[in-house]
């Protein structure tokens, strides 16, 4: 290997190492890493859940949304399991999120010791359009 090639290889290795360091460093911060769980899985986690940033998906419980000034609370369900959510994020909540709709909701945040989930982010998916009823075929 000649001298120039060596210099180039060393330069490249430095860059690669720097990027790897950045990647690993980014993964250490728990705010950037979130574990995807369903409502019932969160309950199985027990006390381990408090340390994790979680992304929980479940169905919005109809009529559970309570707004009070800027506060927002609601409940998501999966089968018989329920999880109370308190929204602490800053972004506007999505359009599909309201008391009338069947929405699948994904909340990101942390479970508190009192069992209430503090969500920083809410994503809502509308129930699949293809399953929705069409108007009846008569007429």
């Amino acid at each position: 290997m000649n001298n120039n090639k060596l210099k180039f290889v060393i330069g490249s290795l430095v860059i690669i190492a720097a990027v790897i360091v950045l990647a690993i460093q980014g993964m250490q911060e728990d705010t950037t890493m979130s574990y995807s769980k369903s409502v019932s899985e969160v309950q199985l986690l027990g006390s381990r859940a408090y340390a994790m940033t979680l992304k929980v998906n479940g169905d919005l419980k109809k009529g559970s949304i309570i707004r009070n000034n800027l506060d927002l609370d609601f409940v998501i369900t999966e089968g018989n399991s329920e999880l109370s959510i308190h929204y602490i994020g800053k972004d506007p909540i999505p359009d599909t999120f309201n008391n009338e709709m069947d929405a699948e909701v994904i909340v990101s945040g942390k479970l508190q010791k009192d069992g209430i989930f503090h969500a920083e982010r809410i994503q809502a998916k509308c129930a699949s359009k293809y399953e929705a009823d069409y108007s009846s075929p008569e007429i």
Partner: protein
Amino acid sequence: MADLGNILLFFLFPVSVFTALTALAAGITKRRGLLEAARRGAYAAFAVTTLAVLALEYLLVTSDFSIEYVASNTNFALPLFYKIVALWAGHNGSLLLWTWIVTIFIAIVAYQHRHKNNDLMPYVLFVMGSTMVFFSILSVFISNPFQTLYQEVGNTLQEFTARDGHGLNPLLQHPAMVIHPPVLFIGYVGSVVPFAFAIAALITGKLGTEWIHTTRRWALTTWGFLAVGIILGGKWAYVELGWGGYWAWDPVENASLLPWLTSTAYLHSVMIQERKGMLKIWNMALVIATYLLAIFGTFLTRSGIVSSVHAFANSGLGPAFAIFLSMGIIFSVTLLLYRRKDLKPDEEMESLVSRESGFLFNNLLFLLATIAVLWGTMFPVISELFTGDQITVGPPWFNNIMIPIGLALLLLTGAGPLLAWRHTSVETLKRSFGWPILGSIIFIMALYAFGIHDGWALGSFAISFFVMWTILVEFVKGANIRRKNSGENFLLAMYMLSRKNTRRYGGYLIHAAMVVMFVGFTGNAFNSETRAEVGEGDSFNLGPYTFNAIQITEAQTENYSSQTLELEMFRNDRLISTISPEKRYYFASEQPSTEVDIYSTLREDIYAVLSGMSNDGTKVIVQVYRNPLVNMVWIGAFIMGIGTLFAMLPNLRENKAGDK
């Protein structure tokens, strides 16, 4: 009409198979007749698909709600324009559009090369034809847009016609969303052309720069379309999604960025091959990677393998894509390994400080960026495979890596063109870099004095200033030399200079556009926002601005009902503007939709969102973002488009003898 569409679409499958197989046979037997037949097959595929698209358009425009696709994506009250563009509003229609673009490109390539490249063309048509076969299978058998509506009556399924359709998703009713998919698709699909020529070169062993020259314009065009498509997607997200930003490192966004990164790397590294005969395998690999990543992007978008806020329906296309992708990877990598001995470099690298090594580091950074984005995007899948937990990495992780890589690349943008080929001496370095570096230092000291203290932002502004300076110097120096020789005035000299080497100066223009966009990206460091619950007469502040809620009004149209908040915006007690964020409720789709209002200047955007109502219904919740420099991103994208077009112009040849 639906039956006709179905029949037409169904024809596409045998026609595609015929094209691919006769092309392959033509390659093996070297018979012109077979090549001619394959070419006709390509034209036929184009004709058949075009008619199928027209048939679907007819159904959309006439609101034939016996067709599931039409009923799911349009309704009677939808404006005609949106009925037409509903072709790509849903999954099945988008796939037909994809397929159609593939057939358009294969027809164009077949026609362009009807008298030339007879040795490469059979395999080019074979590769493009195979892609066509794949997409025709998806369109015809898995996601057919001509599917009729069924309902269960007792134990049997009966066709029926819906009374009205579900309407177009309100989020898609926006001009940027109308052009974003086709533009992006052209970018995605376009990558098949350089790929097909690269594979043809590998198969035939004609590994010179012939395939590169032939596909240069294609590579550049598709690169430009990808870039513009990505930005349009960002623009749409910004204006329509209402969270105040344009990029969130969402899997679907990342999917479009990946092929753009590799194709940008290719556009640079190919210059080394043309000039020095180096990096031949690498260039092949980049072209192959770009194509495979484009397919992968479509797969990611359509399969639902990684959950995304874009929430496309999980369409069950996953396995088909996985098979096609693996076949593509195995086939290309095998070919590349088989030819690796013929792809040895003609020359070796001479110096670390040279144009070549600038390009090499550029490519290394693009490669690392690609791997990082791919890794982050696929991390939920990877982590589930190894730990059983699905772990998502958030935007901070991407920013942590991509901001340094982006700035390093931007720095190279300025430094690279100043480095000489082979070797650059310390003297030249001092001469070319001295003033720009000094200039940028003074520039950021001034910014610091004005109160900008964010380290990354200062770094980014310093680099932007440096790069812009070096680009301007290139234009000015060149124009001055030309002016002395030709006696033209300065502007004409600059124009003539650029026209004589459009690739180089178009490239500089694109670099300048990147600088402008980076200035826009850097604006993110200074974003601020506030949220308030207001009734008529209330007011709140954000930075130097005061907002007064004037009134809350309700209105109704045929398509939706709406609620609007009128805000007066003051700065230092002076009325600047009125902004009116709105919330709509679309009847047909039963979906609410947020219409943001943006007061936009070069300096900053004031972005207001009506995010909801208080429980008693007397007050509304409004969110206001202050986003500095966002407009630079769109302006940069526009310059980039111009630069790309300019780079594609043929070089102007001057007749020296005719000079007077």
